[in-house]
């Protein structure tokens, strides 16, 4: 009762909305921390590395791609409760859409004519192409439930990169498509964050990783706002209802098939969007970038972050990305360095079966990754920042388990 009246008090408009922000809410806090971090990151990194941190900013932009992917998969898995194990397929479709339509590739195909469509337009095209494939995959398969859907999506995730690899006439096969167009803008603001004085640049070309980073942050802000809107809408509630009880949802007049299809298509469109950005930044796409491991990694990000909770998923994505692409890649160097520093340099020598500490770490890298994941899930099964619902479900499950223990004892 009191909750209702409290919510009704603040007025509309910006002021009312600011007053309504609950600063004790963990999600609000997470958004503030994430956004603040995103703003200061480039400056901080350049300062800390004495101006040599550009590669770190570039890595952060790549991490943003994964945040985007995790947000999209969260719509499918977290909101609608559909297990999708082939999500990287849509990522590939987005990336190849950009690669084919923004490079000289089509000149050497039977089409004999290169196509160069601007990046900004292709972002939208990739969204629609991926959504279309999402709908195409979903239409015949969404009648399946749970495990069966997972298997079909798994198959789809395997097929798509294989098609791109084997359709060499069009896609360049294993070599992929190199030398993609650089996105351009008629005007761009540069400043201290890119190591230059504040100025407006005309005919700006996206070559500097910092520019990609800024673009990524801007896109993420927009997308987070949009998904938040979606979650608290008619459609968001319908997804949740289907996740909870499909029969009851249908009895409420929800067309479960089209609603699930929409979740699939919207999730896919995020992936297509991310793929387009990824292709443009890397200026190269190859079938190797979209393997099953990518699908699983994204799923991990969603689950570890806190299924269904937007800031949680973002934090999960960042955490996994940092572990996967920074900690683990540098771990061999760190361990051998540490051995040297501690006067245990002999550990780095190759001797018989022992390849040296660095190489040995390299061999064990996936074991370390697995251990980190297992420990995280044991310590925080609900994810880093779970949704309220998920928290409740797990609390419920554990009470039931302990009750069962009592009864069997």
């Amino acid at each position: 009762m009191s909750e209702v009246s409290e919510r009704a008090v603040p007025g509309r408009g910006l002021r009312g909305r600011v007053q309504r922000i609950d600063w004790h809410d963990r999600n609000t806090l997470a958004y503030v921390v994430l956004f603040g971090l995103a703003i200061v990151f480039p400056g901080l990194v350049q300062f800390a590395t004495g101006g040599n941190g550009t590669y770190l900013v570039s890595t952060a932009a790549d991490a943003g791609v994964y945040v985007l992917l995790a947000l999209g998969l969260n719509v499918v898995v977290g909101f609608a409760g559909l297990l999708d194990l082939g999500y990287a397929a849509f990522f590939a479709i987005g990336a190849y859409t950009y690669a084919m339509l923004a490079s000289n590739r089509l000149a050497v195909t039977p089409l004999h004519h290169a196509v160069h469509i601007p990046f900004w337009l292709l972002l939208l095209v990739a969204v629609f192409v991926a959504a279309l494939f999402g709908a195409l995959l979903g239409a015949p398969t969404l009648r399946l439930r749970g495990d069966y859907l997972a298997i079909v999506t798994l198959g789809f995730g395997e097929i798509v990169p294989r098609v791109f690899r084997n359709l060499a006439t069009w896609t360049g096969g294993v070599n992929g498509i190199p030398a993609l167009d650089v996105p351009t803008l008629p005007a761009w603001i540069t400043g201290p964050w890119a190591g230059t004085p504040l100025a407006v640049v005309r005919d700006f070309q996206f070559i500097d990783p910092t520019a990609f980073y800024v673009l990524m942050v801007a896109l993420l802000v927009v997308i987070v706002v949009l998904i938040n809107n979606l979650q608290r809408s008619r459609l968001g509630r319908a997804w949740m209802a289907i996740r909870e009880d499909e029969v009851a949802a249908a009895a409420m007049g929800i067309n479960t098939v089209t609603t699930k299809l929409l979740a699939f298509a919207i999730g896919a469109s995020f992936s297509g969007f991310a793929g387009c950005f990824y292709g443009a930044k890397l200026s190269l796409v190859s079938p190797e970038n979209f393997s099953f491991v990518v699908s699983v990694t994204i799923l991990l990000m969603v689950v570890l972050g806190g299924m269904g909770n937007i800031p949680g998923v973002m934090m999960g994505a960042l955490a996994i990305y940092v572990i996967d692409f920074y900690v683990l890649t540098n771990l061999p160097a760190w361990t051998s360095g540490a051995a040297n520093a501690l006067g245990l340099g002999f550990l780095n020598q190759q001797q018989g079966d022992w390849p040296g500490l660095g190489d040995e770490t390299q061999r064990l890298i996936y074991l370390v990754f697995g251990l980190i994941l297992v420990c995280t899930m044991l310590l925080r099964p609900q994810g880093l920042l779970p949704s309220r619902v998920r928290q409740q479900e797990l609390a419920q499950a554990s009470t039931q388990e302990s009750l069962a223990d009592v009864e069997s004892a």
Partner: protein
Amino acid sequence: MGDEQDGVILRCEHVSKRFGGLLAVDDVSFTVERGQVFALIGPNGAGKTTLFNCITGLFPPTEGGILFEGLDIAGARPHQVARLGIARTFQNIRLFEYMTALDNVRVGQHARMHAKLWDSLFKLPRERREEREVTERAMELLRFVGLERNAHDYARNLAYGQQRRLEIARALATQPRLLLLDEPAAGFTPQEKVELMELVESILGRGITVFLIEHDMRLVMGISHRIAVLDHGEKIAEGSPEEVRRNERVIEAYLGRSA
């Protein structure tokens, strides 16, 4: 058909439902009059819920026709049936447990809302207005069933009786003209049963026809205008509460054991 002029809202004609070798519903016909309370009674396993499931499109009847306001809905999908104006509750409560009471009732209004994907994505003024209206209507319905204080509680945290009432509120949110209640008083205390009877009265007062399955004889006899009795999938009697009470076959099949 002439159903509209006759005041018939639902007509089942020779409906049968077969599961493999089991004939769960066997050639059942009856009509439900608009503005009345129609009750379906019978021993466990008589096929009552199966009949409800056929009407609401969970599965199609094997044979026969189901006419809602003169329109044949046999074989229609559940969401289509709901959109036409038939709402239901479930024998074993099927709320969206991890959604708030308010959200449960808001989901109920899904089919009566118009927000499209773009409206929701960009929170257009039209969408905001609709959300406000939907929330107000949901609160009104929660008040109607006496749950306004629990609007922000998760459905699963509500007491049993509250869950049953929330399910009714959620069904009413679909703006039905015919409401199907599957054992709404199961597990109720006598006091709760009295409250339920009052609730059914006020639902009728809103111009909604009520079609219910119920085991409690006193409750059924108290609120129903007309009763049909099912036994082993067959309709063995139909009439006013008084006629059904006196019917030999009913006494034999059903009341004989309990009365």
